[in-house]
């Protein structure tokens, strides 16, 4: 049964290196019946027969391709390999890809719906039918909608998948503004910085073709999009690109860098602006690009009306604006070597258009004014003209596609102030992490609250405030947790509803992983396998039942079913969006839904499918991914077609072309081009929006002194800066707790401390320290390392999982059993009773668990610190450090939620609330997730 070496059939796979001697993957033509020898019996040749069915990894945001090997005899998934047809991941995965098998076969996973019995949080559950759960939730939602309490329905989602417009479709069909996300504790800062420049909130660096790569991130080990980006960063490096990493801590990524700048957290903007200044001063910028695409004329008109409106005047103004950002100033602020700053600046200029840069969380998520780090970074890309160039950084939308679904409902006339409060008119995403405080303040209540692949109690700052409101049945009347596993949050739900994992549901992905546009198709592998055997199912959960996987549902069908039950006869106008597009009155099926999109919304897919004699859906079921096109550079330069100019007006001074009141293009050197989706259609060095919305001092890229500026610290008195936000390459928030192979590799999160600091506190590796914030403290071990700047502590946020019950409520591979006590109202003390222990289960490995450490849950003791502009939580903490006392034990946590509410109020005072110009809640042009109808943007319409 020697495999002949055949060229891969798939157009994407053809671009991979030809296999020399050994093939990476079985040829797609044989995926439906593939024979391999069973390694368990090797060297005896025992043949196993598999169906290879592609799907998408569930673990991080990258949406890498997986190829599930379904045993044709047992119907079980034997393993997950990479999908070679996936353009982003190219058949390769990080450790979390193969670990999907652990998650699917997790002996502790929840297979049937559970309903709380007794008090919420008491931990008593009974199995219920899906009908019971769905009917109860549908009734509550229906009555809330009927009563006009539509703000009381909230869907709070983590990642990944079934998001964006596919879920927007559901909530908008219900007529609500009910989406809530995790983004403001994550990437909202960077998004804000990018969006104010270019209207698009994400960067898409073209690493593979770059000559210089600047990362304020750790993309060789984490982040959007770890595996696809790491591949291409290393490809770029191997072709000679230089890599500079700005990160306070020695990440794996920094370890591979040519230049590592360990900056004092929050000083990054100063360093980048110093680089910009060198490039300006030494005239290394791309004069033509800046002249053509930056809104410098608007800047001069608004800020220097007395000066002549010439480009040289603009450059002179820039030199004046940034004159204090000398390398020495940047070095004072950051601690970085000024010589290296100059060298890096010149290297970046040398790379020119092939300069790729990236920030996603890191400093942007850590600091007050963190969004300005991204803004400064984009400034640098703009100066050297490396925007949407080969080797440069494109806006995400140039490398991404969101296929339109059938039947999009209209945007609702609704604005939910629990997620989009007037204090944060410019917040880039929902003020999700303030929800407990809003509820406590009496801003509203929730009739139905859904959490999905989200664990706010654990993941968000100030988790104890979350626990308090989750436990309050008056504030949150029903809480349904859609989850395949137990979590800290699920423990405080009314329903725990098992939803499918990576290989157990449908989903459509498209990520800006490289200079290309592609889609990836997540599909329920067991259902597909059983259907190929001739069985038919109306719903995925029936296939799971047939395969012995309990009653695990998938989201698509859940929302269709729930919507039908909310509006059973269609009188509310909801049901019609969940009916078959071809046979109205019949329930929409996932085959129809995705089949319709693949047929109508994915350019080139129907043709590619036809070439293989397949329907577009069958093609996607076979390959799991499709490459639409590559390149996508310079999309902003695209001229507007004459047809698009009909009926459009041109504004004389700015050259902006408008249609129906919104800008659609801009005249550049006499040609009308698409430009960027900003008010000026250009790259906005100067944001009139920020000026108009009461932030004139932030209208241009500016260094904001962070709340953890080094001058705020009295090091001698034990004050230090804690950076609590870094990932490990092996884990993914609270989704990987049931992956034994990952937890075996990583299971503790000690506090990184420089030897100099360790000497001051008289501690060595593994000694306990007590770290106090404004609202409480935690006790953790110390890791003394040369990989951190003196004065700064670092601690990974991936660990510290806990459960309240010995037998249930948390994955035993990764959780510590804790006691939680309320000492006084709002004063909570958590103490570990024991760490991870071996346990008996169907998996013999569970009795071989050798690690005891579950880490320490630091996020509980962080107050909320919302940035007044971006709304992003500023994660970095000023802490007081001391050697642990006699009564302190590893993992001890104390929190006072009264204090956390005080801190919340203090940060709220920094806001500059709506209305803005025109009595708007939010600038109309500024992107908003689940955008409501334009009318809803106006405050007067609702009051």
């Amino acid at each position, binding site marked *: *049964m020697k*495999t*002949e*070496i055949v060229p891969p059939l798939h157009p994407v796979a053809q671009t991979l290196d030809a*296999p020399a*001697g*050994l*093939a*990476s*993957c*079985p040829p797609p033509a044989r995926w439906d019946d593939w*024979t*391999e*020898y069973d*390694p*368990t019996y*090797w*060297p*005896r*040749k025992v043949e196993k027969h598999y169906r290879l069915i592609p799907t998408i990894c569930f673990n991080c945001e990258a949406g890498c391709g997986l190829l599930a090997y379904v045993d044709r005899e047992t119907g079980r998934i034997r*393993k997950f*390999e*990479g999908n070679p047809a996936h353009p982003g991941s190219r*058949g*390769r*995965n*990080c*450790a979390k*890809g*193969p*670990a999907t098998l652990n998650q699917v076969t997790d002996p502790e996973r929840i297979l049937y719906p559970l309903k709380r019995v007794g008090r919420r949080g008491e931990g008593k559950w009974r199995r219920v039918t899906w009908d019971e759960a769905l009917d109860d939730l549908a009734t509550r939602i229906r009555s809330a909608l009927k009563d006009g309490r539509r703000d009381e329905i909230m869907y709070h989602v983590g990642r990944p998948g079934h998001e964006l417009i596919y879920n927007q479709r559901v909530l908008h069909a219900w007529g609500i503004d009910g989406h809530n996300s995790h983004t403001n504790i994550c990437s909202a800062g960077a998004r804000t910085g990018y969006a104010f420049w270019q209207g698009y909130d994400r960067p898409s660096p073209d690493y593979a073709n770059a000559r210089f790569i600047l990362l304020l991130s750790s993309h*060789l*080990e984490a982040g959007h999009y770890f595996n696809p980006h*790491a591949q291409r960063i*290393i490809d770029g*490096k191997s072709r000679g690109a230089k890599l500079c990493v700005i990160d306070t801590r*020695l990440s*794996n*990524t920094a*370890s591979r860098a040519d230049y590592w700048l360990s900056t004092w957290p929050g000083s990054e903007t100063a360093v980048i602006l110093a680089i910009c200044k060198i490039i300006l001063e030494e005239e290394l910028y791309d004069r033509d690009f800046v002249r053509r695409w930056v809104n410098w004329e608007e800047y001069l008109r608004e800020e220097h009306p007395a000066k002549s409106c010439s480009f040289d005047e603009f450059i002179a103004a820039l030199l004046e604006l940034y004159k204090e950002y000398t390398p020495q100033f940047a070095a004072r602020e950051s601690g970085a*070597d000024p010589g290296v700053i100059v060298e890096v600046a010149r290297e970046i200029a040398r790379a020119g258009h092939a300069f790729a840069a990236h920030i996603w969380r890191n400093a942007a998520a850590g600091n007050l004014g963190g969004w300005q780090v991204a803004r400064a970074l984009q400034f640098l890309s703009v100066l050297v003209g490396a925007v949407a160039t080969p080797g440069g950084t494109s806006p995400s939308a140039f490398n991404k596609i969101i296929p339109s679904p059938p039947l999009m409902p209209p945007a609702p006339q609704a604005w939910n102030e629990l997620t989009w409060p007037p204090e944060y008119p410019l917040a880039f995403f929902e003020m999700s992490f303030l929800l407990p405080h809003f509820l406590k303040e009496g801003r509203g209540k929730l009739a139905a609250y859904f959490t999905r692949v989200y664990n706010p109690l654990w993941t968000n700052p100030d988790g104890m405030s979350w626990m308090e409101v989750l436990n309050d049945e008056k504030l949150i009347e029903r809480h349904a947790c859609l989850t395949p596993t137990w979590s800290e949050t699920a423990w405080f739900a009314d329903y725990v509803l098992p939803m499918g994992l990576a290989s157990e549901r449908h989903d459509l992905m498209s990520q800006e992983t490289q200079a290309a546009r592609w889609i990836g198709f997540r599909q329920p592998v067991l259902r597909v396998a059983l259907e190929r055997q001739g069985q038919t199912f109306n719903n995925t959960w029936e296939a799971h039942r047939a395969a012995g996987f309990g009653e695990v549902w998938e989201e698509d069908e859940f929302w269709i079913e729930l919507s039908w039950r909310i509006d059973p006869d269609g009188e509310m106008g909801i049901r019609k969006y969940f009916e078959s597009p071809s046979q109205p009155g019949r329930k929409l099926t996932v085959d129809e839904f995705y089949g319709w999109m693949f047929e109508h919304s994915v350019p080139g897919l129907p043709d590619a499918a036809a070439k293989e004699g397949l329907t577009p859906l069958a093609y996607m079921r076979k390959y799991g991914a499709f490459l639409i096109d590559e390149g996508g550079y310079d999309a902003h330069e695209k001229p507007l077609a004459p047809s698009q100019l009909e009926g459009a007006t041109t504004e004389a001074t700015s050259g902006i072309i408008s249609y129906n009141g919104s800008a659609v293009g801009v005249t550049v050197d006499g040609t009308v081009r698409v430009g960027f989706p900003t008010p000026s259609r250009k790259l906005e060095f100067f944001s009139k929006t920020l000026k108009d919305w009461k932030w004139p001092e932030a209208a241009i890229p500016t260094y904001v002194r962070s709340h953890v500026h080094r001058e705020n610290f009295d090091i001698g008195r034990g004050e230090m800066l804690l950076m609590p936000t870094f990932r*490990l*390459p*092996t884990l993914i928030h609270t989704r990987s707790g049931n992956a034994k*192979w990952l937890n075996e*590799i*990583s*299971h*503790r999160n*000690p506090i990184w401390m420089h030897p100099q600091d360790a000497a001051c506190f008289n501690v060595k590796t*593994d000694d306990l320290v007590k770290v106090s914030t404004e609202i409480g403290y935690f006790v953790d*071990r110390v890791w003394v*390392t040369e*990989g951190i*700047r003196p004065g700064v502590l670092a601690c*990974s946020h991936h660990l510290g999982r806990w459960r309240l019950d010995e037998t249930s409520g948390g994955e035993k591979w990764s959780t510590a059993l804790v006691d939680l006590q309320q000492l006084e109202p709002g004063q909570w003390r958590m103490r570990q009773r024991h760490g991870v222990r071996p346990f008996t289960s169907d998996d013999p*490995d569970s009795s*071989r668990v*050798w*690690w005891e450490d579950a880490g320490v849950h630091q996020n509980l003791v962080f107050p909320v610190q919302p940035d007044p502009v971006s709304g992003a939580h500023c994660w970095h903490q000023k802490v007081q450090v001391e050697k642990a006392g006699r009564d302190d034990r590893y993992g001890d946590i104390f929190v006072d939620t009264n204090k956390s509410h005080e801190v919340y109020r203090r940060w709220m005072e920094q806001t500059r609330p709506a209305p803005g110009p025109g009595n708007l809640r939010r600038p109309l042009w500024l992107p908003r997730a689940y955008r409501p109808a334009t009318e809803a943007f106006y405050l007067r319409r609702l009051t």
Partner: protein
Amino acid sequence: MRYGFVIDHNRCIGCHACTVACKEEHDVPVGVFRTWVKYIEKGHFPASRRHFGVMRCNHCDAAPCVEICPTSALFYRPDRIVDFDNSRCIGCQSCMQACPYDALYIHPDTHTAAKCNFCAHRIEIGLEPACVLVCPTRAISAGDLDDAESPVSRLLASEKAASRKPHKGTDPKLFYLGIDGAFLQPSLMEPQPSHLFAAHNPAANQYTIEPTASAEPLSSAQVVYDVAHRQAWDWMSALYLWTKSIAAGVLIIAILTLWSSGSEKNRTAPFFAIMSPAIAVLFTGLTAIFLIAHLKRPDRFYYILIKPNPRSWLVRGTWILMAYGAVAALWMALGVLRISSPPAIYALAIALALASAAYSAFLFGQAKGRDLWQSPLFIWILIAQTFVAGSAILLIVAPFFTTSTHAVALVESYFVLSLLINGSMILTQILMPPYSEDVRYAVNLVVSGSLRRRFWWGVITMGTLLPLALTVYSVVASAFAIEVLAALMALVGLFIFDDVWITAGQAPPLS
């Protein structure tokens, strides 16, 4: 055709995908690894850096594991992949001593050895190993080193490659590009009390992770992540060496005494004709029992006989021991029948006794992973030990028999002489300049590390100096009971030495 790996650490990002993909492909249990990514850190802030090293079987062309494996459970495939067949494995763990790269482990369910087998089951159908396929940055390449066009050959032709421990003569077929030099000398790294994002597995060899025994740090490379390796051989192995030295020594000393005394009467005296061979038979039997008991698959002990690898000194040793046991039994039988043994029996017995004593040096020599055990002195120490053990056991039993005082005096002199020789050889072994870093590591552990008490008090003081002093005293004072005590102490000292030798030999980290 020769399959080999090239791992490019200019491309490796330390993500552990290979580790997990391997676990998935082979269903490798929790606690053990076929491949893993070691992390070290070097340098001072802000010039500090972390380095990764992907560790696994080197698929050696001269694989010590294949040579030592008594049942050929480890074998070369025609494409020179070093594969294994766990249905032949008896769990002797000698492969784990032979491998200089820590590649093998014992599967907790099958209790047999396992390691990376290059995904031979995939190679067989033309597919890359699972780790090669998964690697995000294509840091791992696999291919035919004999084919100039293969990806591995092309890499090796154009880049500077390193391999681990080439001086071991193993001809590894795993080549590294851009690996940090510290990975090539693991015993120079500084272990840490725990790891960056993991704890130490409590099953790990504690001697490997204890802080470097030497006073000053030899290297600035700190181990910040690694996986556990158990100490494969323990006191049970020391016990078998010990019983074997008694078994072999008793007849050597008996024959020497017979020859030296020149007395014909002694040849039929029960002490020499029955008691001595009986001790030899008994301790040979005990040796066999301990040998079998220390197997992870004692139920398969007879595979050594029915599926033997004649190149393995474990097999050769078994044959020698069996032959020796048979000769001793014959000697005893003749003694019981009151037939005077022919000189040929003595000659055969002494030859086989010496072989029994000495073959372990060749077995330990085949344990190529353990530098300490490669000592040229070890064979002589084993022989000296045999003399000590033989004379000691005879001194202990002598009071129960009517033996000529001349003979006892001869045994006494062998005892004193062999103790002196053994002690000085041990000291020479320990105090001579170490011939490798691993030996320095092991010797430091013995001289000044956590084995120092066992060595200085147990081996030198109680096992050598006190017995010498007591024997001299007993001769002078004619206090023969004290002589028995001296002999007992010497025997205990021998056991402690064997245990220290086995523990220290396995202490230096191999990877």
